[in-house]
């Protein structure tokens, strides 16, 4: 156990350091730019959809074009308000005032505002959120590779152990949840859980109740 802990500490430090560097970089980017990037991606995808819809028949493209062009206009308006909120806030009949006020307050959002509940600094919060996202993506990839049951065991145990350091709790909860999944989903509902892409590549015998992997 001590050997396991001593080996895992440098790895944990490496992960923490990497995440910290990425989070520090992200937080140096002004929040408005991050917001603009998000809406920029949305704008790009909508533009791609609008262009694609021109290939369809008039009936098929009617609604996507109507909605898509409207959405592009709304996002452009959002960009305009982000750039010059003072100039345009009075002209919307009050409909966009809330947007302007919200945008103006965002400038200080990530730098000075502390979480009400826990006095967590924005940088630490961002690090944790980023880490959690990585955990979820990692679990997803693991599920795709080695299947639901195996990935769930690894994810639940390692998550609770890394965050709480309690091996008995981690092991107990893992056994309970995976046991429930096996009993309810596999035995009772006979749902063919995803068994992992590696199973189809490596010469490993499939369990007796496995079905075909969906395309």
């Amino acid at each position, binding site marked *: 156990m001590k050997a396991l802990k001593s080996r895992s500490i440098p790895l944990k430090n490496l992960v923490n350091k990497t995440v910290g560097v990425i989070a520090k970089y992200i937080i140096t980017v002004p929040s408005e730019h991050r917001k603009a990037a998000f809406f920029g991606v*949305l704008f790009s995808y909508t533009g791609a959809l609008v262009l694609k819809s021109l290939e369809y028949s008039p009936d098929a493209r009617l609604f996507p074009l109507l909605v898509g062009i409207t959405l592009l206009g709304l996002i452009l308006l959002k960009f305009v308000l982000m750039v010059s909120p003072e100039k345009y806030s009075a002209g919307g009949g009050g409909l966009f005032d809330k947007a302007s006020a919200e945008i103006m307050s965002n400038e200080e959002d990530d730098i000075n505002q502390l*979480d009400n509940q826990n006095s967590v600094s924005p940088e630490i919060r961002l690090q944790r959120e980023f880490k959690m996202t990585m955990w979820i993506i990692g679990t997803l990839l693991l599920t795709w590779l080695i299947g639901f049951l195996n990935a769930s065991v690894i*994810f639940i145990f390692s998550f609770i152990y890394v965050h709480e350091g309690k091996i008995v709790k981690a092991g107990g909860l893992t056994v309970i949840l995976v046991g429930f999944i096996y009993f309810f989903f596999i035995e009772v509902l006979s749902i063919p859980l995803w068994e992992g892409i590696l199973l189809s590549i490596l010469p490993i015998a499939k369990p007796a109740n496995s079905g075909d992997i969906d395309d």
Partner: protein
Amino acid sequence: MIELAMEPVFLQQTGNTMDAISIAIDVITDPFNFVLLVLAVVLGLIFGVLPGLGGPIALALLIPITFQFDGNVAIMILAGTLGATAFGGSITAILLNTPGDAPNAATLLDGYPMTRQGRAGEALAASAISSATGALVGVTLLLISLPFVRSITLAFGSPELFWLAIAGLATVAIATRGSVLSDLIAGAFGLMLAFHGLNPITGTARFTWDTVYLMNGIELIPLIIGLFAISEMIKLMGTKTTISKPGEVTSGIQEGFGSVVEHWKLLVQSSSVGWVIGLIPGAGGTVANFIAYINAKQRSSDSQSFGTGNVKGVIASEAANDAKDGGSMIPTLGLGIPGSASTAVLLGALIIHGVTPGPLLFKENLQIVFIVVFALIISNILTSIIGLLTASSLAKISNVSTTTIAPLVVVIALLGSFAIRHHIGDVFLAVGFGIIGFLMLKYDMSRVAVIIALVLGPLAEQNFHRALQISHGEYSILFMRPLSLVLILITVLILATPIYRSVRSVT
């Protein structure tokens, strides 16, 4: 699984009302049948609680088991399960921001904030009582409207369904919190998502990017699971707090009960809205849930508090969610047109057991209607009792540390996403929308608007094209019928309200 072997019994059937009631009572009160009903209710509750499972899957899995029973008993079991799944889904919606099924999505809007404030017990109790009462109102209206089944259901044609969907979409502009512009962007984005996949009217596969996965469009449940459950876990891990503040969890059963009694008018109103929406074939439970919620918010004097933990939001959505079952029985049983996915499965079960839904059902198998009514009543009462008894224990989940809850919720969420179609792509979808949902949270965009648009967008488009096909391209069909004009007026009023209020506040 345990196999129950029973000798087949000839279906007792009648078209006479008193005989039908008598047969229904005999079936329900038979001790063995009552035990089966209780088991069905418990199973429905479990299925309702687990995200991604819900009514349709529960019913579909039970159909083979009901082969061994006569049609009356089989329908009793299925109707009992249907009644229970509705409340089951609200438990996770309230406690974990994860709706058990799409129709429970509106409940989390205020239910989860209540949990964060330590009022989970109150939310669960209010949900339990509203569910039961909504179901009772729904079946009462069903019984009253039996003589008018045909004319009610046939009043809604394609033009009316189109305008109803437009009215629902218009509410995005006023019903969601945050800036109108952000919410309109979210709603429009939801509509663009709805256009992915094969269009059943035009036959065109749109925005599939040459993938087989997107041929069926963007699946609703994984999207909801990602937008709400996964994004919330990311957010909670950011602050590493419990769902509710430590020490602030109260039992709240009395408060929940008191809230429902205090807002009895809202309860009846929302139940009626849910029942009416349930009448409309294809509208579905999600629509009933949201429209009742939006209606409650609009009529409230403190509409700004909706979305921050206002118990009225929970009452409205849960009452409508259960009342819609009573309404959806009219097109399902009376015309053979299912109102939702769950009733579609119920319809299949009826046909398997040799009962043909439609006008003849009321002449030859009226006992089926009363069995459904009694089963819905009993299942809702039972689930409410279970809900009230377990509310304070369940509320304690909100005090469990996030580092314990988060991985469990994530695993159940991913499983739930997979369980619907057994497709790994749905799991990827859930995670993708989990990240998008988290960013939407960060930038104050309404996730609810995306769901409303995703549900109502296809309804609007398909019925628009269908109406034009019926009229051979004449657009006047959309403006000719009285019910269409009423719905257009409602849409205009909905859109004009925020403009009027803004102008009034400026002047």
